[in-house]
C-alpha cells in the first residue's frame, strides 16, 4: 500500500508551518521607546464667550493662556490664527483645529446666574483622539472670575500633564520703595501671577523672611519696627497678629513645622551667636537644636517634621546641613559643591532642595536632588536669592536683579521657562509661595 503521498503532504505542511513560525512572530514588529521629549504641547484656548458683563471684564482664556504658557510645557495657539471661536464642544469642527496643529482645544463660556453668581464652564478636547477630557463648572461672585480662570488652568494642566496645577494659589513678598535712609517697606500678598496684590504690613523699618503657615492662613515674618528684629505671626484674612519672639539679639528665620504647631527660629542672644531653636507655639517652650560659635540659621523642615535643614558656616563658609530634632542629634553636611550654599527650602515631595549657590562670581538658584546629590543651577542672574517652591513642586519663585531693580522670577523646575513679576517703582524681593488651601481634585 502506498502511504508516502499523504504522509508527505502532512510532513510538508508541518514543516511549512514550522518554517513559517519565524514569519508569524515577526507579524508584530516590536519597538522599544526609552525616551521622549518635553516640547510644549500645542493647545488652542479659544476666547470664552460671555453674557454681558458676566466676566467682570476678565479675559478668562487669556489668564488660562498665561498660566499654562508660564510652565513651559504648553504652547497656546495665537488668537489671530483662529478662524472660528466656538464656545461649546458640539460647535467644534475638530478637523480644522487638528490640521492647524493643535493637540488639544479648550472652549468655554461665562454666564450670569441668579443671586449675583457667575458660572465659568469649559470643555477640554483632545484633537488627536477626539475625546472630551473635562467639562467642569466653577461658580462664584463676579469678583471671583479671575480665581475661576486659574482653577480652569489647574484642571487643564492636570489632565494634560498629570501634575496638580498651582495656578489658583498665592504668594507673599516684601516690597521696598524710596531711597535710603527714607525707605518704605511693605509686606504684600498676591495671586501667584502677581495680580490682586494687597499690602498687609507697612513700616519705615525693614521686614523680612515671610513664611506661610501650612494651612495658608497665617504669615510669620521678621520685623524691625522696634529697631531690632522680632518675629510676629499674622492672620492674613483679619490682620490680627501677635509677637512670638522679641528676645535680646537676633530673632530671625521663622519656619512653620508641617503640623503648624511649632516654629523653627534663629536666636542670637546677647553673645550674638545665631543658633536654631524650636518654639512650641502653644506651650511657648523653647528647645535648642544647634550650638557653637558658627552662624546657624535659615532653618527649613523636612516633610515628616523629624529633621530640619539649615545654613551653617561651621566649616568656614556657608553650607547646608541637616539635623534630627531629637535630643543629642548631630548635624550632617548636605552640600559639598562650591564655597557658598545657603537658604535651603524643600520641595513638597521632599526629594529636592532649592538653595542659593555661588556659581563663579554669581549667586544663583540651585536645586539639589537629595537622593543622588546632583546639583542643577536653574537661574542665570548675578544676585539671585530667596527661592521658594510652588506647592505642586513644578515651579520655583525667587528674586533677582534686572536692569538695576529687584524683581521676582517664576521658573519651571527644569529651568527652561521663566516669567518676571516686577513693580515699576518698587523693589520686590523675598517671595514665598503659599501652600494649597483647597483639597485636591
Amino acid at each position: 500500500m502506498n502511504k508516502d503521498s499523504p504522509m508527505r503532504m502532512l510532513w510538508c505542511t508541518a514543516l511549512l508551518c514550522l518554517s513559517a513560525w519565524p514569519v508569524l512572530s515577526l507579524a508584530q514588529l516590536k519597538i522599544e521607546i526609552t525616551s521622549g521629549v518635553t516640547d510644549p504641547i500645542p493647545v488652542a484656548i479659544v476666547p470664552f464667550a460671555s453674557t454681558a458683563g458676566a466676566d467682570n471684564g476678565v479675559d478668562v482664556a487669556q489668564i488660562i493662556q498665561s498660566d499654562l504658557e508660564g510652565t513651559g510645557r504648553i504652547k497656546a495657539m495665537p488668537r489671530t490664527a483662529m478662524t472660528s471661536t466656538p464656545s461649546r464642544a458640539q460647535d467644534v469642527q475638530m478637523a480644522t483645529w487638528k490640521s492647524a496643529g493643535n493637540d488639544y482645544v479648550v472652549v468655554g463660556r461665562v454666564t450670569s446666574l441668579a443671586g449675583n453668581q457667575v458660572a465659568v464652564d469649559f470643555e477640554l478636547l483632545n484633537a488627536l483622539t477626539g475625546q472630551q477630557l473635562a467639562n467642569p463648572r466653577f461658580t462664584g461672585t463676579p469678583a471671583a472670575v479671575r480665581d475661576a480662570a486659574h482653577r480652569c488652568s489647574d484642571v487643564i494642566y492636570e489632565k494634560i500633564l498629570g501634575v496638580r496645577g498651582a495656578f489658583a494659589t498665592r504668594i507673599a513678598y516684601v516690597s521696598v520703595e524710596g531711597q535710603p535712609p527714607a525707605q518704605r517697606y511693605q509686606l504684600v500678598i498676591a495671586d501667584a501671577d502677581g495680580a490682586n496684590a494687597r499690602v498687609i504690613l507697612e513700616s519705615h523699618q525693614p521686614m523680612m523672611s515671610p513664611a506661610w503657615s501650612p494651612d495658608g492662613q497665617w504669615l510669620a515674618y521678621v520685623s524691625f519696627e522696634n529697631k531690632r528684629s522680632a518675629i510676629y505671626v499674622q492672620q492674613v484674612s483679619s490682620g490680627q497678629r501677635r509677637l512670638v519672639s522679641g528676645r535680646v539679639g537676633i530673632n530671625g528665620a521663622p519656619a512653620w513645622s508641617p503640623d503648624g504647631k511649632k516654629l523653627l527660629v534663629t536666636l542670637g542672644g546677647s553673645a550674638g551667636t545665631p543658633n536654631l531653636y524650636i518654639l512650641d507655639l502653644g506651650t511657648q517652650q523653647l528647645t535648642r537644636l544647634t550650638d557653637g560659635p558658627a552662624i546657624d540659621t535659615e532653618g527649613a523642615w523636612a516633610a515628616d517634621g523629624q529633621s530640619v535643614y539649615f545654613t551653617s558656616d561651621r566649616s568656614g563658609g556657608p553650607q547646608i546641613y541637616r539635623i534630627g530634632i531629637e535630643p543629642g542629634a548631630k548635624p550632617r553636611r548636605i552640600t559639598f559643591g562650591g564655597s557658598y550654599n545657603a537658604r535651603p527650602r524643600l520641595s513638597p515631595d521632599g526629594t529636592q532642595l532649592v538653595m542659593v549657590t555661588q556659581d563663579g562670581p554669581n549667586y544663583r538658584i540651585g536645586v539639589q536632588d537629595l537622593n543622588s546629590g546632583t546639583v542643577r543651577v536653574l537661574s542665570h542672574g548675578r544676585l539671585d536669592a530667596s527661592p521658594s517652591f510652588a506647592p505642586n513642586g513644578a515651579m520655583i519663585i525667587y528674586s533677582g536683579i534686572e536692569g538695576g531693580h529687584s524683581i521676582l522670577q517664576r521658573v519651571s523646575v527644569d529651568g527652561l521657562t521663566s516669567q518676571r513679576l516686577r513693580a515699576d517703582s518698587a523693589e520686590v524681593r523675598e517671595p514665598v509661595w503659599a501652600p494649597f488651601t483647597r483639597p485636591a481634585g
Partner: protein
Amino acid sequence: MAVLVYGYFQFRRPPPPISALAIDATVVSQATLDAAQRPVAPPQPVAPPSPPPQVVQPVPPPDQAAQQAAAQAEAEHQAAAERAEAAHEHAAAQRAADQLAARKHAAAEEAASAKAEREAQAKAKAKAAEEQTARRAAEAQAKAAAAAKMQAAATQADLQRSIAAEERLQAARASGALSSWAQQIQARIQRAWIRPPSARSGLDCTLYVTQVPGGEVVTVRLGACNGDDAVKQSILDAAYRASPLPAPPDPNLFERNLEVNFRPTD
C-alpha cells in the same frame, strides 16, 4: 529560534527516494522528476565511428612431413569414420526403439501435460485476471501517485519559492534592513512622545498600533500600562503625532502591526 532554524534546515534535506513498484506500472522516479524540472540539453551532433583497424593473418608455408602426417591422419580419420558409422546404425536402431518408448511416454506425458497445461492455463487465466486487476489497481494507484507527485512537485515548488523569499528575508534581516526600519520608527515615535512629568523611570506601557502601507496610523490600542491618565493619554497622542510612520527600505518588510513598549530609562 534554534528549533526554528533546525526545523527549517530539516525541511531543506532532499526527500527520501521512491522504491520500484509493480509490473508495467509507470514509475515516475525522482530522477525523472528532476529531469523534468531541469532543462534538457539539446542533442549534440555525434561524429561517425571510425572503421576498426584490420589485422592481417600470415599464411603458413607447405611442408613434406606435414603432408605425411596429414595423410596418416586422414586414414585414421576414415577408419574412425567407418567405426562411427557402425556405431551410428546401432545407435539409430536403439534410438528408434527408444523413440517408440519415448513416443508412448510422451503421449502419456502429453496427456498429463495437456491436463496440466489446461490447469495451468486456467491458473494463468485466473492469474492473468488477477494480475490485470492488480495491474489496473496499480495503474490507478500509480496515476494517483503520479498526481500526488505532481502536486507535491508543485507544493515543493511553492515551498521552494517561499524558502527563497524566506532566504531573502533572512538576508535582509541579516543585513540590518529590518532593524534599521524599526529604529526609524522608534526615532519617530520618540520625537513625537511628549512626556508628562509623571512619566518617570519605572514606567512600563504597551501600545498596539496598526498602520497601513504608507505609514498612516489607523488604530491604536493601549495594552498593560502602569502610568497615570496623563501618561496614557500622552502615549496615545504620540502614536497619532508620529503618523505617517516611515516606510521600510524593502517593501517586503512592511508590517501592519506594531507593538510599542514605553519604558523610559531616566
